[in-house]
């Protein structure tokens, strides 16, 4: 049976403008989490839990890293919790990236802003499986850039910023042409970016990780749906996703 996970905050760091890196400790979550899954986190004083992706896992230390941007009252409250506090968490939730399927040799990760975190744990896991990784990470400005070095360690990494204040100037899709042959892509970021990425790479197999406002976070309330391209109507992001095959969903 599933249960509520009590995860202890081990570290809280500000790693970029408005961006918090938090390390949580929990044996079972660390053991079972798959890249692409998320934690559904209770934040004191808030009715609804906050979904946040798993950005990294250290199975030995039972440590789970999450990265989140402080955009509203929930993420601000979360960022202000002290080391040692206990988080009340559902998860790991969602399907995660499919790592079983064989998808060629070279994989492109395309992340935008706070969509970058889940790609890190994914990239690390893919490298372990022998894939070659190329990463394209887009941020608004220099101040928002994070994890460049970490991604560089797992493969070639291109940073783009909207205003050119760091890396190349423009959108992630502006640099996709520079990328050598890839077999498959994984992408997470704002919806307009995902749309642009999918149409740019329409000839490639790809996976998208989606976001939507959630109620239950477990599949019971039908809040977080995305229309599908087949007859099934809607899929639930919290349960059937958040990762979907690029052509499966209408975005």
């Amino acid at each position, binding site marked *: *049976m*599933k*249960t*509520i996970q009590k995860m202890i905050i081990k570290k809280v760091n500000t790693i970029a403008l408005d961006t918090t890196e938090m390390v949580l400790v929990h044996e079972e979550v660390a053991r079972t989490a798959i890249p692409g899954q998320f934690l559904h986190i*209770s934040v004191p004083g*808030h*009715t*609804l*839990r906050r979904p946040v992706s798993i950005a990294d896992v250290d199975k030995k230390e039972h440590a789970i890293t999450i990265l989140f941007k402080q955009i509203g009252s*929930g993420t601000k409250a979360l960022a202000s919790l002290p080391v040692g506090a206990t988080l009340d968490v*559902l998860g790991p939730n969602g399907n995660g990236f499919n790592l079983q399927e064989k998808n060629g040799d070279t994989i492109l990760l395309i992340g935008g802003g706070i969509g970058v975190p889940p790609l890190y744990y994914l990239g690390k896991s893919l490298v372990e499986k022998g894939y070659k990784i190329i990463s394209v990470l887009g941020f608004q400005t220099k101040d928002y850039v994070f994890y460049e070095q970490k991604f560089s360690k797992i493969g070639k990494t291109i940073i783009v910023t909207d205003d050119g204040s760091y890396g190349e100037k423009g959108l992630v899709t502006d640099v996709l042409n520079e990328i050598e042959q890839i077999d498959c892509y994984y992408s997470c970021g704002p919806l307009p970016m995902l749309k642009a990425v999918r149409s740019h790479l329409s000839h490639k197999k790809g996976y998208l990780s989606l976001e*939507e*406002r*959630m*109620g*239950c*976070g*477990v*599949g*019971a*309330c*039908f*809040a*977080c*749906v*995305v*229309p599908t391209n087949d007859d099934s*109507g*809607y899929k639930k992001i919290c*349960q059937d996703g958040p990762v979907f095959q690029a052509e499966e969903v209408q975005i």
Partner: protein
Amino acid sequence: MIDLSVELPGLSLKNPIMPASGCFGFGREYSEYYDLSRLGAIMMKAATGSKRLGNPTPRVAETASGMLNAIGLQNPGVNEVIKNEVPFLAQYDTKIIANIAGSTIEEYEKVAKAFNQTKDVHALELNISCPNVKEGGIQFGTDTEMAARVTEIVKNASDKPVYVKLSPNVSDITAMARSVEKAGADGLSMINTLTGMQIHLPSKQPLLANKTGGLSGPAIKPIAIRMIYEVRQHVSIPIIGMGGISTAEDVLEFLLAGANAVAIGTANFQNPFTCIDIIEKLPEVLKQNGFHSVKDAVGKGIVDDSSNISCP
């Protein structure tokens, strides 16, 4: 021993706690958290005549001590619900209440007839917080006559006890309650959500794609308590109370106001074990407050004197 059992029309409940419609899907997800047989009953998500896709997203928004939802009745249609969902729930030793909805009287009738074919459904919950498309979109639940009519039709279409779920968005909740009681309702279920809206500052537009949504959660509890308290004094059929319950103390408050059993909606999202936690704590809370059973407490909060008329 504190007796948690409750006898309602068609529903012999081991305890008065059930998840509210729309907040528990068809039980599959929460069955991974605990044994559904522990629940008094389960209120299934609304079923309509045929499949509905529901509203575009965003469908939910957080508010102070509450939330707004505008799911829009997404469901696979009554026949699929009977085929694929009811059998799953029927495995459990609990009662199944089917929530039925529609846009026309005929649709309600169709859904009620369909559920009448399955013995695994123990009662119907008639969701009248829906617009009647044939009558200019006025909600069935805000017009005493339309509410009475749909109640009668559903009663005629089905042998199952019918609990009419009242909308709180009305000037006179007791008039609605009396009207559906007269039309044959076996019980009431109250309250459904209050219509609300949130405007999203970054986009300067209503946050929900549907613009308005239903407000639920602790924010609405005082309104639910007031309405149950008022209705209890004007009808004799049982009431399943809901609206903002998250603790066993809240449950006792609803019982005292006149509810015979209660449903829990939004609180499941914060804590999937809410229903179970309440079932575990309720005996102690009843005992501390001098009650030996759930039945003992029902309506005991009602002060018998002339109805108050004052301006707040």
